[in-house]
């Protein structure tokens, strides 16, 4: 197989590459969203403990 054939996919290039691109988006979203959530939770924990300290 040559690079050209690889990109062209026997005329189905648009369908094949769109599918793989969407798969990539879903896989990346599932990595980024827990990382963002972790940052949010660490920030919330910080506030929670600070408030607790102040009220005690």
């Amino acid at each position, binding site marked *: 197989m040559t690079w050209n054939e690889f990109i062209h996919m026997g005329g*189905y290039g648009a369908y094949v590459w769109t*599918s793989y691109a*969407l798969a990539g988006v879903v896989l990346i979203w599932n990595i980024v969203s*827990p990382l963002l959530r972790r940052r949010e*939770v660490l920030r919330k924990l910080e506030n929670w403990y*600070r408030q607790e300290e102040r009220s005690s």
Partner: protein
Amino acid sequence: MWAFFHKLASPKHFYRITGSWIPWLWTITLLLMIPGLYLGLWVAPPDYQQGDSYRIMFVHVPAAWMSLFIYMFMAVVGGIGLIWNMKMADIMAASSAPIGASFTFLALVTGSIWGKPMWGTWWVWDARLTSELILLFLYLGYIALHSAIEEPRTAARAAAILAIVGSVNIPIIYYSVEWWNTLHQGPTVTRMGKPAIHSSMLWPLLLMAGAFQMYFFTVLLMRARTEMLWRERRNRWVRELFGNYRRPSLSNNPEEVSS
């Protein structure tokens, strides 16, 4: 062995033990996915009927399998949580829902993109496609229900019941291509005896399926560990890890804080 599993059921030990698993799980995922993509997109020959369009299968089928697997996982783990009232069970079930929803979405969309050149249509209201769409709504319903209830125990119980009741849809999806006439092709891999697929196409499919499976466990752990911290914030072990956030001199594990 049992002592190990018993330990894993406690959030504190789960958090500590699984933290070291994540890099290994990523390594295994990549070791399966890279050869899977190479064999599937480059080495495997075009299909004699479908040309190169069949290569969509290597993401479509694993995504569809995972959409079913994750739902069953949610129902079983949710059931365990209902019976033994385990906090961990609900964290695992609730953390897998968005991942399952995203795989269901991927299966539907890549199926649609594959259907256009092969069937001449993006969508038909047949049994397989409709029941898979219902699965997406079940995932979304589960997420909405879980987040709508403030009290964690009630939320866990209600969501687990929804997951268990909704699992009747899983065999319907699985057998839909045999029970009803449909445009969707029948099973090729799990057919009794010899799979109706050449090994040059079977190998990349199995590698990609394995990669998606490992990937699921990895991102599930990432989500579950974070969720655990928040729910356990009143417990000492979280306090010890994150409580002295503003006082680095007292922090016994600075790495955990910055990550």
